[in-house]
């Protein structure tokens, strides 16, 4: 109760629903920030927007050389190159959101301390920026697949809803890691390690069904890794002979709901305290 009618308490987080409504009302802030960030970050380089596609391309070339030519294994599929680049490109989307999300609040401390707006817009703008980056990457992926002889089909269009779902999942993860890194800066140190673990666990350069064929427990565990689920779904619609396992089809939406639900609530609960970070 206010000492004088008409006053409200400053420095308290708003009710959950009101918070979401307010964030929705100011969504253009997140979009504008994401656009400016993307352009501002790229314009300083000579090659500009080309870097969006060059970076994952280089990654794919390196892994293709090392795991394709140097270390060959029986778990390698026949259509090795399309299989690899699909995995690398889609995984890049997750990495970008994960890493960016961890810096969404800490990297914008000045903005947080000078303007009052729903803080959830900062991780959202990170995910929007990464989504903007993923569009040319997916176009490049389509072209490369055609070059390597994968037949185009209507099922390719299913990539859009799959990536939209992945974007929501990424947002959930970014929200969780965004709040965590405010209170525990160590999280940012640990993120490259998690990325690496997930990279190897997501069956990007080997076929998990072949590698763990005689170990059902490991196989199911590998099938449940969220990043693997999304990569498997994309492979399922874009490549020939790589249908996504049933576990992945079920697990991907479940991971998405789980991540976004926990993420939004977890992030909202600390809303009033983000300005306190050093």
């Amino acid at each position, binding site marked *: *109760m*206010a*000492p*004088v*009618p*008409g*006053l*409200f*308490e*400053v*420095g*308290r987080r708003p009710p959950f629903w009101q918070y979401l409504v307010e964030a929705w*009302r*100011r969504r*253009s*802030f997140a979009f*504008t*920030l994401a656009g*400016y*960030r993307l352009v*501002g*970050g790229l314009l300083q380089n000579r090659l500009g927007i080309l870097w969006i596609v060059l970076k994952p391309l280089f990654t794919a070339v390196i892994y293709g050389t090392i795991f394709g030519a140097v270390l060959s294994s029986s778990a390698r599929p026949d259509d090795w190159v399309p299989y690899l680049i699909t995995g690398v490109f889609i995984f890049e989307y997750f990495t970008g959101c994960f890493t960016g999300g961890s810096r969404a609040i800490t990297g*914008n401390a*000045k*903005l*947080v*301390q*000078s*303007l*009052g*707006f729903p803080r959830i*817009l900062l991780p959202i703008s990170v995910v929007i920026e990464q989504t903007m980056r993923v569009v040319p990457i997916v176009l490049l992926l389509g072209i490369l697949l055609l070059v390597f002889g994968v037949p185009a089909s209507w099922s390719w269009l299913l990539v859009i809803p799959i990536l939209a779902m992945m974007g929501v999942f990424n947002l959930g993860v970014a929200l969780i890691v965004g709040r965590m890194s405010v209170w525990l800066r*160590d999280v940012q140190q640990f993120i490259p390690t998690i990325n690496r673990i997930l990279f190897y666990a997501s069956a990007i350069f080997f076929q998990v069904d072949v590698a763990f064929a005689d*170990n059902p427990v*490991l196989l199911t565990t590998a099938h449940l890794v969220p990043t693997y689920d999304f990569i498997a779904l994309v492979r399922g619609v874009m490549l020939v002979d790589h249908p996504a396992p049933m576990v992945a089809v079920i697990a991907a939406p479940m991971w998405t709901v789980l991540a976004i639900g926990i993420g939004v609530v977890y992030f909202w609960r600390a809303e*009033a*305290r983000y*300005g*306190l970070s*050093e």
Partner: protein
Amino acid sequence: MASVSELEQPGATALSSASGPRPMIVVDDAHVTYRVYASGKRLSARDSIFNMRALRGGRGLKTVPALRGVSFTASEGETIGVIGHNGSGKSTLFRAMSGLIPPSEGTIWAADRPVLLGVNAALVPELSGENNIKLGLLAMGFTPEEATAHIDEIADFAELNEFIHHPMRTYSSGMGARLRFAIASAKAHSILLVDEALAVGDRRFKLKSEQRIRELRDSAGLVMIVSHSVSSLRDTCERVLWIHKGELRADGAAKAVIDDYSKWVKQPGRGAVGAASVGSGRRPGTSGAKPAASGVTPATSAAKPASTHISPAERAANAGVPAAAVSTAPTGLNVAALAPVGAPSDPLTFDQLLSGEAMHAVQTSSPERTKPRHPRKQPIATRPITLPRESPRDAARRERYLRAARDRNRRRIVALAITGAAILVAVAAGAAIALVGALTHTATLPAPAGVSPAETAQAAVRFVDVAFLRDVDELSLDLAMKADAVAAGSEAYFTGLADV
């Protein structure tokens, strides 16, 4: 909540019922405590590297009280200046009022979300001024169309000309401040908090922004300004708050408070930078909403008090009212009269202060520092000398300290437990991986190849022993026992396999 504030502030209800200007902000005993990761003491290079705390991953967590119980009421149509030396808590107060920092104790009420514009607050340095204008407007709740429409107007006001298209990181501090002021004042906020903005711009822009502040105030708003420029405050404000070491030292008519402040600034040996390292033995709470206790007329009433600075004379005048608090004052005065005015300040650390043992020392020493102004004017003989008793404020402060200490201990134990658990999990995971690896290996190869994982596990145990025995003695012992068991188990398993 209302009942509490009414209990604490008998004046508040009277204020609200009085027909007068509508209160826009009510700050009720606000405390803000920062958590800073720092050792809090000087470390030699050797210390900082070989410190056990650094190994454990902890930079020491230190709590710094930046605001300690500030209360006041500000009403519609007022322009209030805030003064105080660097680090006294002015900016913290503004941040707390604008909701960017939650008060750790007490509450702040506002009629509308207060908007803070400060010099230090950069928006997004990589972006151009124009983009920053748009972002700032959108963040303040403008629709994209409105924002686009306002961009030119704001750019014109900031007078940045062609620089508006340059990245903001290339701006001088004055240019940045101008832009931020222009953005924040674009909307007719009902409550505007200005942090040093006027001090940075050049003379021309200063006049312009003063004009804009007056306009904002006239459109039924409240404007509060932090500034070190005493003359500009004298021009723009009619009421001034003086924040000293995180507490409200004075609240009253601009001229009187500024005069007091200027006089105090010229004193030799005054406290340097620092918010609240030592408690001052002042009465509990100074506020505009508390006329009964201190003789301060609420600043919202028509007659502005000359100055509400609590001089010793005033203490004497209403000595009967806050009995517990005033009891410390006479003792302090005696000491002040005897002690040299320019004595080194802050002889006690915060921890010492709150440990209770030092309470007596503080109560005798702190008035010397905070009230060095008229020691000789007081006829000592008329002051009854009472034993320094704990004022409610000191008690509350000690209570807070003890609570913080308890919290700290609890966190330390939790951190220790988590670290131990993490190590345990890591060891277990390593053993599991080794096990699985050996399993698949022995499945394909006939020769027993399971020796090396077991050795790895043992090496891990040895490592754990060496690395953590000194720090987390019992924990690592326990851990080593468990890891040993794991290693032994896996060894037995592998020898079994080899036998097969």
